[in-house]
């Protein structure tokens, strides 16, 4: 009898009947009743009132019944915590059942009930299970540790389960090893440093890959991906071990292996080896393209990333990315994207004719995408432009309306990119005037006509016919018509004068649209003032347009390549976006509109220069960069991890030394780390705004310290063809109240393709402090070419270090510390448990690690407590309390800060990183 019957009952007295059945003596009717309970539970009916009755069935030898009861418990234990505790005895008893299946079942279920009270009883059975003779129990126990950690991390450390997990890595059963790695990896997310990957461990893990199940292989490979090889040899051996994995039937194994291989490729010195590896990557990637469509999609999104950095891997395999007839639309879209990326001088012709074939398909969206792809290839590869234009003209001749319109939009870009090269195409394009009903296509064609006004014979007629229906056009077309008519007027010695005047007047007086009105005003005044000047403005050379294919900035690309196969790599977005638990990070792009408005008045007297259609763009800052640069800082600071024995020997000396320092209150003596210890700040600058978003100006920047003053290093790279003058910068109010000492930059002019480094002295102005601005420093830069561009930098760990270094009097007196601590209160407190390396002597270790950060010891008490303080920009205090026990390596870290919580979080990471090294 199929189980589906359990879904069908809808009696009124259902619950009552079930209750009776559950309390009957026959296992059979109990089972039937429970199945019905579970069926109700599944469809969302509330059956929690049967909790006690179900519990009564728990003690049974009937395995099926037991499984059903357990299933029920997992779902309802949370809603009935008081009653759930009654189940504990049976759980504990089952956990020592002779049958490993039942032992496992009990353990697994107990772990799933995430109640602290149950967890207390879980520890003892779990401890036994981790040493169970049966690997099936051990592998479940390993995962169970991760479950327990989520409910109560303290219990995990109390019972030393992490240590046991580490022993399980050497277990004889590969599945146990894989699960132990998975569990450690999971705990590592909230307690970094749990999964310590040592060279011999990594090679051991890779060695046992072959014995693991496919999922186990993925756990291990993903864990290894966070390991940084010590040098080129180790990287080579990791790659060699992973290359065979590319032959695995499971696409996830292939992608994970690919990720680790690509990651380690960076450390390879031998060019030959790297080339050999790259050669082996192509074929497996192509094979992924014939996987199931959904898996294929993940693969394609990753290939899209890979070819940006390593186009040579797949350049010869471009045909594999030709769309198949029955590919789902999302696959076709990705393949097109990749084809455009792979296009080069050799294969462009083939790719273009392929795209042309697609333009004859049924799916309109895909057809348009294919046409755009042709256009992008034309913009990207000069040699192929001719062929592209030929293709597009063929497509225009098909007279299929949407094909024609899209082709014209694309043609506009090509004609702008290669001025005066394709004027022969104009007659063909103009044949289709009447058919164009999309504003974008109409506007594009009108732009082309205006641009080539002096080469078209019947230009006046043509434009006049457009102008007749001026009122009926959409705003986009109207704007373009204004421009076009003005161009015609200027180029063809005053033709169209009457109608131009008419539409200008019309737009100035009657239009509701501000952009249109402004444009009309602008042209009309310009024409009235000086016709020659108007010519030089309106007919000036346009900046060269670049391939519109979206480009990720390098650091994001690298981050994503390190995360291949993950969601981030599929969406091409920074990994933290996908973390639900972490607080949403402040978006840099939210530059206050208000400030922008004020600013535009101050900074931009020449707002008219700005193209009216172009919207202000604000860059996204990549948050992923911070990490690596902090690591660099630490390494450079000479705080290299010493072996534990050595450091304990040295600690005493060090302690006394530091004590000396403190007793003198002589922070002067060792003015922390002067700037030459850093890698030169010019090299550390991070991209803030790509050239494409700031009209040809690429902006990078970083905070740094010069003497004891904080400076902002700004690197400007002029990618445009014009010289930029009169550069000025301004900061919005920010968390720390830092603004530039003067707004003018000491850069007279920035020639095309030139880059320059400006050092901006910052000063502290309390009135510029605004804690509502979060961690973002909003900045604006102005010059004569770009107008005003907005961008921002984020206060992250590496920047915070800079600010800490600039402070000399971070040490508070004991009393001041106490007052401040109470003042702040627990609302601005972060408590975290971290673990420090074994064998170090506390609290000396803290002082040693925190002093370079300019976090100073205030006091320490014999009761295993220790206090530190730090200060940022005079008024922001960060107070640290560390509490430890002799038993374990875990230290409780409490932080309080009189500024925003976000700052506290960064500081927390900083300290955690310093201490867990």
């Amino acid at each position, binding site marked *: 009898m*199929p*189980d*589906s019957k359990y879904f069908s009952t809808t009696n009124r007295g259902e619950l009552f009947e079930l209750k009776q059945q559950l309390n009957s003596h026959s296992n059979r009717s109990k089972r039937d009743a429970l199945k019905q309970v*579970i*069926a109700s539970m*599944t*469809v969302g009916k509330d059956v929690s009132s049967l909790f006690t009755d179900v519990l009564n069935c728990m003690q049974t030898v009937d395995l099926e019944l037991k499984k*059903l009861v357990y299933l029920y418990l997992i779902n309802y234990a949370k809603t009935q915590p008081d009653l759930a505790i009654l189940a504990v005895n049976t759980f504990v008893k089952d956990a020592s059942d002779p049958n*490993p*299946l039942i032992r496992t079942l009990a353990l*697994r279920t107990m772990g*799933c009930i995430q109640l602290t009270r149950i967890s207390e009883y879980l520890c003892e059975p779990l401890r036994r299970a981790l040493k169970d003779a049966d690997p*099936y129990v051990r*592998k479940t126990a390993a*995962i169970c540790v*991760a*479950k327990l950690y989520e409910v109560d991390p303290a219990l995990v450390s109390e019972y030393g389960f992490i240590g046991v997990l580490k022993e399980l890595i050497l277990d004889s059963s*590969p*599945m*146990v090893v894989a*699960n132990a790695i998975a569990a450690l990896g*999971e705990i590592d997310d909230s307690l970094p440093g749990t999964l310590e990957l040592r060279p011999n461990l990594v090679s051991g893990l890779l060695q046992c890959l072959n*014995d*693991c*199940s*496919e999922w186990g292989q993925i*756990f291990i490979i*993903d864990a290894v991906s966070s390991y940084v090889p010590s040098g080129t040899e180790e990287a080579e051996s990791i790659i060699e071990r992973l290359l065979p994995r590319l*032959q*695995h*039937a*499971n*696409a*996830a194994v292939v992608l*994970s292996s690919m990720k680790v291989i690509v990651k380690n490729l960076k450390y390879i010195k031998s060019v030959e080896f790297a080339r050999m590896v790259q050669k082996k990557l192509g*074929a497996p990637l*192509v094979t992924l393209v*014939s996987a199931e*469509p*959904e*898996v294929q*999609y*993940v693969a394609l999104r990753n290939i899209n990333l890979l070819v940006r950095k390593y186009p040579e891997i797949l350049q010869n395999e471009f*045909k*594999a990315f*030709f769309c*198949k*007839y029955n590919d789902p*639309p*999302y696959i076709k879209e990705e393949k097109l994207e990749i084809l455009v990326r792979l296009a080069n001088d050799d294969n462009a012709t083939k790719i273009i004719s392929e795209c042309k*074939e697609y333009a004859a398909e049924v799916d309109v*969206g895909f057809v348009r995408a294919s046409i755009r792809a042709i256009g992008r290839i034309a913009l990207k590869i000069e040699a192929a432009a001719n062929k592209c234009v030929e293709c597009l003209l063929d497509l225009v001749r098909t007279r299929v309306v949407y094909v024609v319109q899209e082709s014209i939009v694309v043609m506009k870009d090509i004609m702008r990119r290669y001025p005066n090269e394709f004027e022969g195409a104009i007659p063909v394009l103009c044949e289709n005037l009447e058919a164009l009903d999309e504003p974008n296509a109409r506007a594009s064609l009108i732009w082309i006509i205006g641009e080539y006004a002096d080469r078209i014979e019947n230009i006046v007629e043509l434009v006049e016919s457009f102008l007749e229906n001026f009122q009926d056009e959409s705003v986009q077309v109207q704007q373009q018509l204004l421009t076009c008519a003005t161009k015609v007027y200027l180029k063809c010695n005053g033709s169209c004068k009457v109608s131009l005047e008419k539409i200008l007047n019309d737009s100035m007086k009657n239009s509701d649209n501000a952009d249109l009105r402004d444009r009309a005003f602008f042209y009309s005044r310009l024409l009235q003032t000086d016709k020659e000047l108007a010519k030089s403005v309106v007919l000036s050379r346009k900046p060269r347009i670049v391939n519109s294919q979206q480009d990720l900035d390098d650091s994001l690309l690298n981050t994503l390549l390190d995360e291949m*196969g*993950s*969601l*981030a790599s*599929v*969406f091409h977005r920074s990994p933290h976006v*996908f*973390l639900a638990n972490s607080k949403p990070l402040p978006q840099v792009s939210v530059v206050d509109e208000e400030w922008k408005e004020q600013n535009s008045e101050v900074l931009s007297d020449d707002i008219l220069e700005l193209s009216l259609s172009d919207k202000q763009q604000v860059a996204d800052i990549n948050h992923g960069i911070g990490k690596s640069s902090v690591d660099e800082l630490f390494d450079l600071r000479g705080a290299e991890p010493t072996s534990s024995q050595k450091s304990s020997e040295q600690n005493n000396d060090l302690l006394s030394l530091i004590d000396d320092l403190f007793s003198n209150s002589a922070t002067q003596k060792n003015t922390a780390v002067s700037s030459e210890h850093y890698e030169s700040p010019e090299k550390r600058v991070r991209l803030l705004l790509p050239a494409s978003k700031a009209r040809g100006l690429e902006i990078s920047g970083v905070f740094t310290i010069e003497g004891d003053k904080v400076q902002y290093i700004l690197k400007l790279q002029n990618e445009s063809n014009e010289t930029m003058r009169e550069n000025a910068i301004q900061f919005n109010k920010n968390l720390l109240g830092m603004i530039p000492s003067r707004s003018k930059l000491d850069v007279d002019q920035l020639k095309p393709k030139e880059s320059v480094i400006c050092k901006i002295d910052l000063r502290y102005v309390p009135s510029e402090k605004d804690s509502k601005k979060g961690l973002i420093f909003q900045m604006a830069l102005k010059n004569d070419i770009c107008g005003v561009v907005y961008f921002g930098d984020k206060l992250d760990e590496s920047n915070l270090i800079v600010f800490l270094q600039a402070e000399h009097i971070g040490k508070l007196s004991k009393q001041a510390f106490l007052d401040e601590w109470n003042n702040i209160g627990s609302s601005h407190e972060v408590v975290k448990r971290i673990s420090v390396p074994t064998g170090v002597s506390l609290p000396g270790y803290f002082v040693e690690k925190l002093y370079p950060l300019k976090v100073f010891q205030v006091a320490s008490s014999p009761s295993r407590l220790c206090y530190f303080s730090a200060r940022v920009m005079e008024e922001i205090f960060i107070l640290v309390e560390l509490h430890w026990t002799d038993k374990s390596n875990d230290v409780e870290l409490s932080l309080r800060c009189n500024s925003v919580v976000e700052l506290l979080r960064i500081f927390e990471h900083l300290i955690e990183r310093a201490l867990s090294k």
Partner: protein
Amino acid sequence: MAWVQIPLSAFLYFLVGGLSSERNYGGEKGRFGVLLFLLFLVKVSALYILDARGRVLISRNYRGDVPVDVISQVKLKVIEAEDDSSTKPILHDEQRGYSLAFIKVADIFLVAVTRTNANAALMLSFLYRVVLVFREYFKDVEEESIRDNFVLIYELLDEMMDFGFPQSTESKVLQEYITQERHVLESPRPPIAVTNAVSWRSEGVKHQRNEVFLDVIEKVNLLVGANGNLLYSEILGQMKMKSYLSGMPELKLGLNDKLQFEATGRPGQGRAVELEDIKFHQCVRLSRFETDRTISFIPPDGEFELMSYRLSTPMRPLIWVDAMIEFHPYRVNYTINVRAQFKPKYTANSVKIHIPTPPDADTPSFKSASGRVKYTPEKDVVVWSLKHLHGGQELVVRGYFGLPSIPSSENREQAVRRPISVEFEIPYFTVSGLQVRYLKIIEKSGYRALPWITN
């Protein structure tokens, strides 16, 4: 009167199969009406099975951190998305901070949802594996079978995934201790295989006749330009094995693989094939293959795909089909030429040629000297079947359809531009030239096994 040249840019599918009559592997026809969700935190948080309208059939919350109404959110997204096939298989809900990946098999959805930056490839391949395991247990995976087996499914889901980490997904091994039969006297114990290095096969398998079947199936994708030029060709090959062997047999497979000949330093007798990329079933020792290209493995019991491979060497299609489709006001004429381009000593059996037709065609009338022509209106194709086609042979079939005067669908010409596909089998012949040189079976007990190789 216009001539429409077909194929302009069409894919031709060729199938070269083994002798075995069961070539319909996994050709699932069952209708699905189920939605299946998985939620990953680090990996997966919970798992739901919903029917086509998004109602929950089964839910299994692995981590207890998923709000109940996630389902309704996901439901909306996926069900709405169903109309629009352009929806990507992975979605992200920024506001609520979870992402979901789903697969669609027939009209069933399997959806995995995560709250972290999870391994998307793993999520998707796990979903596919879940369907595979369900299929082994109760054949058709559809709403009805999910309801019929919901207790079993809960057990399986618990066994296949723990706290969001995929565990044991080998259906053969799972079937040994997760069953629907009642165990009155003795409860089952987990088989050793679950945690063993050889997790796909249990010890103590017994068969009366020790047999193993190996089928090579190759699919060819061809892209032909309007002028008949071959633009792109690719061979996708599969090796299907059916193993009925006792004990723990060690198998070694030798192919005429060019790189293997090179690796072993043996001069290749006859033709050797350079396989571009090979994917193996997890039982094959990959590191061994990497070092000396030996394919050695302990097979799972029963049917499985041992390996798949790909070649993109330019090749001439074995059977060339040319379809001339000519539209008239009330009629569409078909002239189909077929030419066998292989050596006369070979014969292709059960040749089936599928030719697309306009959706509104009626009253078919076809004449052919050989074979049968059948119109299949459900799929809008004409199937021309030939029992045999000898090397070098050329055949023609002509016919026409009636057309209503007002086109019912906007694009008849588009419809006939769909790819033409051809299926056939040639015994002991593969397009790629791949040959099985030997299949060695070694078992401790030393029984004699019968390898049946059909490629």
